[in-house]
């Protein structure tokens, strides 16, 4: 496995994430797409830390760990907001949540 393998996988993950966010019609699927995006970044950081920076420099891995923590925080807030949306609109489809326009 070289650096290129990891970068290609993370690029695919990132693209899939963006694709999911753009095409999915369900808030939970959108959240999953966002998680894919964030995980592709973590993969990048870990791979760069392994292949690019000196072996005693673990900054990349540390950043990846922070990335995981932030992804968890974001998922928690997102789910709470989805819950609020469900209470108000009775649906979690983004196209049905559109009272604000103009």
């Amino acid at each position, binding site marked *: 496995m070289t650096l290129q393998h990891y970068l290609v996988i993370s690029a695919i993950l990132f693209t899939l994430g963006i694709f999911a966010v753009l095409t999915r019609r369900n808030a939970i699927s959108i959240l999953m797409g966002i998680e894919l995006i964030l995980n592709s970044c973590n993969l990048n950081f870990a791979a760069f830390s392994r292949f690019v920076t000196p072996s005693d420099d673990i900054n990349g891995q540390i950043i990846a760990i922070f990335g995981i923590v932030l992804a968890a925080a974001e998922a928690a807030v997102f789910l709470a907001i989805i819950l609020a949306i469900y*209470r108000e609109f009775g649906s979690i489809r*983004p196209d049905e949540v559109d009272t604000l326009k103009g």
Partner: protein
Amino acid sequence: MQPLSNIDSLLHFSPEILLVIFAAAVIILDLIVKDDESVAVAYLSLVGLGCVCAAVLIIHFSFRNPVSLFEGMIRLDEFSTFFKILLLFATAATILFSLRSEELDERLKGEYYALLLAITLGMFLMASATNLLMIFIALETVSLTSYILAGFLTHSPRSSEAAFKYITYGAVASGTMLFGLSLLFGMAGTGDLTQIGGQLTEHLASGAVAPLAVLIAITFVLAGVGYKIASVPFHMWSPDVYEGAPIPITAFLSVASKSAGFALFIRFFYTGFGATGLMEAVDWPLMLAIVSALTMTVGNLAALPQQNVKRLLAYSSIAHGGYLLMGGVLLTSEGIEAILFYLIVYLFMNLGAFYVVVLVANEMGSETIEGYRGLGSRAPLIAIAMVIFLASLTGIPPFAGFFGKWLLFTAVLEQGYYWLAFVGLLNSVVSLYYYARIFKAMYFEDADEETDRVAFSTGTFALLSVFVIPTIFIGFLNIFYTFSNVSVSVLPMQ
């Protein structure tokens, strides 16, 4: 200059530590006091902000030289001090607005103030971060907290919808930004903003890194920053969020969040890539100039037909983001100075306008332009204050907005971007039209029903004058120019 170690940094970090302590104290006090006494919680937050402000000033005057803290994670200099004071003022104003606002649920106000203090902490870090990791953590602290605050009216569908749209756009934008940061990290081999530019230039010269890769990475980072300052094409969230969120939060997001975004933008590009050869490989100035021109044009044109004043001010705030970006086009120190000065002016005039919106929403129960009918005779002082804010937002002399725009336009003209200055000028004229609609409703249209005078308390007028007086006089005071000048001079050019 050697960065300070973690333990030595703590003393310099005391304003941020104080913020955390006060946020915790606010939560605890909220548990102790009764539901109908949440005013005490607000006053504690204000006292907290006062202490933090004192700490910022004491540290500023006792350690005059810029220092890097926490092994180079954040940097303490005049630039970050400038933004810290600006942000503290914006937060204090937001807390005072929230006290007057009748939208918010009294029982939840304790959490609300604690969240406001937490978001201030995030913005402090945004203004001083000099490491990719710190930049991302600071941005996420601000974003996550503002999603919650935008959706704080749990009984209101509008507010929940605003939070939903905000987090969907925001999460994608910050994910994209993190991807860009990860590529930058990989190409430079370091997360330190002060070294990235040099490393990248070296690797570009040796052919180890392709210019296109750097371009893509920086564009991805721009997505995250552009979303924070609501620049085209990342502005779509802002009208909906501004309309749905509680009014004090709208005011806060349009001023504080945008200022912190600009702090990050300036530090990232100026410190990271300022004078390196990176800026020459791609025509960055042209790209930023186009983004700036589009941002102000889209903001102003979309504002024209708006009936809801909050939404109108949202578009106006997008347009002001465009004006501010003009100063950043060439990343010259004159341009940055103009941005900082305009941010001071914008703070006062925009917060003032939103305060009037809060007052009108409370008294007339309306956020639409119709609610402003006859305000000129029903509440003459409030109407005059609104006229001053709107005139200043348009850029009519002698108000502060004129001097702010003047500086921005001269900075652009000095660099030879005549078309950009022309677009900016045209946009100011367009903006006059929709600001004048509010003016017309206040003075030339009569309210449909009652036409009694509305009485406001002395406290309301006192707070209003805090915004009116600076909006009139800032342009004539040298100290504010010096303030922005000094803040720029410390940014290291490479």
